[in-house]
């Protein structure tokens, strides 16, 4: 699957396209298929996202898992310091990152 990601313009937070808007939780990301390029162009022009791009991801029961480690770390937050970034729902929630 392909999912769209970027940063919030004002805060810099990592965001994911959830089909209607930009969510801070990757679990909400949806498959954008072949429509990603047009989607991110429209959204960036409308100032709803900053520096968006489309990535490969694998579906899982707990939501999409980005194919590349860099985007997995973006999704989870730094692997050092559990008090930083988006907190996982459980202690094992970040086990898929590395």
């Amino acid at each position, binding site marked *: 699957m392909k999912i769209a990601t970027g940063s919030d313009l004002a805060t810099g937070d990592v965001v994911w396209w959830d089909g209607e808007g930009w969510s801070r939780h990757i679990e909400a990301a949806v498959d954008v298929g072949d429509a990603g390029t047009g989607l991110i162009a429209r959204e960036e022009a409308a100032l709803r996202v*900053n520096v968006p791009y489309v990535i490969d991801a694998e579906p899982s029961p707990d939501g999409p898992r980005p194919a590349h480690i860099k985007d997995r*770390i973006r999704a989870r937050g730094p692997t*050092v310091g559990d008090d930083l970034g988006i907190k996982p729902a459980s202690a094992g929630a970040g086990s898929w990152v590395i």
Partner: protein
Amino acid sequence: MYKYDSYDQTIVDTRVEEFREQVERRLSGELSEDQFKPLRLMNGLYLQLHAYMLRVAIPYGTLDARQMRMLAHVARTYDKGYGHFTTRQNIQFNWIELKDTPDILAELATVEMHAIQTSGNCIRNISSDQFAGAAADEVTDPRPWAELLRQWSTFHPEFSYLPRKFKICVIAADEDRAAMRLHDIGIQLTRNEAGDVGAAVYVGGGMGRTPMIAPLIKDFVPIDDLLSYVEACLRVYNRYGRRDNIYKARIKILIHEIGADSYRQQVEDEWAHVKTLGLDPPRAEFERIAGFFAPPAYDSAAPDTIDRSDPDFALWVDQNVKPHKQPGYAIATISLKPVGGIPGDATAAQIDLMADLAERYSFDELRVTHAQNIVLPYVRKADLHALWQALDGAGLATANLDLISDIIACPGLDYCSLANARSIPLAQKIANRFASMERQRDLGELKLKISGCINACGHHHAGHIGILGVDKRGAENYQLLLGGSGAEDASLGNITGPGFDEDGIVDAIERTVETYRAVRTDGERFLDTYRRVGIAPFKEAIYG
């Protein structure tokens, strides 16, 4: 310490308001990201993996308690409660929001700080010896010259759009504590046979994907001509440095391609012209600047002994305290490398405490080191124990300066958008593997440096042991280098062979240091053993 005059303050205040307007235009959509990016970078604002990152300049690594407290305030108010001291003697805040940035810069300006020229293809923060003004072995204090260069390079109209970023370092001792020859221009202040102060100027050093040790371009520039000579060095680079290929745009590539002799001659020709322009400041102006760096009001009756009856304190003194030029005083380094911690990170509370201790024990002055530690440069020997106790209570008394756990590490893939692999967790694993202080002291001086990508912010080329993180088919992989040094015996590390995964590189380091222990002679440092026996026994131990 230097204090802003009205020109300095006006420059910084004006820039804050200019950037405030630019941020407003970006948030309103008047500016696109492509238009805004060079503007924010000129103000030290990056967009990293998780958030905006603000890099604040700390000129030649020197700051006072008031400024340190402001950094704590920024960490507490605008970030997640901590700051990260960098290998260029700056500080970075990793969780900044764009909308807050103008307010942060305005607050920083109230204590004579800014983020100008901490990014972009311009002259960056001037770096220096963290022991400047206090070191027993310096020929003069390099800080006034670093300050002069700071003023000269700030918004220098000719050098604001160089082919690539440009880093200058000034030291004044034979012991190089600032990796001087790994800068674009490295300046070592020295004295000639007549006793006059001048500068040995090295040009074309650097790390990154093409590491080079700067060759000596001129062995003695009369000190009053230093500025015009550096101007000539930059002019030749600005004229001939490549702008068509970012990977070949640094001055080191230019000098490598045309040769040091050719570059030297062109600088001489340009200098002959520049010297006629009256660029060098009158002596009185230099003396005005130097006046800000007058020695503090030392207590001439301060006892010159240290009570070492507390064994833990004595260990800290042995490792983290260095000789001072003033009898009765010492230079104390605060390690920001607790075992299992994040190299260079300090919490807002720790930053505040270090400010308090600087005020109480170090004439209100601190230094940031390129090894990501903090220095109190003027501590009475009689106060060292009280200082150590206060540090110990805050987790800041790790006695590991220059030992294997005093690791330089870039932010790596946990934060940096350029990185290919994580640096911090690896630093933590290595520090934990070698957590025994007895073992660390047995290994002696061993500088381990980790970069998460080829850009080498973690100085891996200059590590006695260096680690470079790379992306190998989407997975983190770590190359091991041995034999680098950023000191006066500067050298570049050699890659041992195929890379390792995260656990494998820690094991490889274990085998490396055990090989060292097996073949070292009495008192021989790791680096000296490596240079004596070569890489072969280490490769044999690592790869079998």
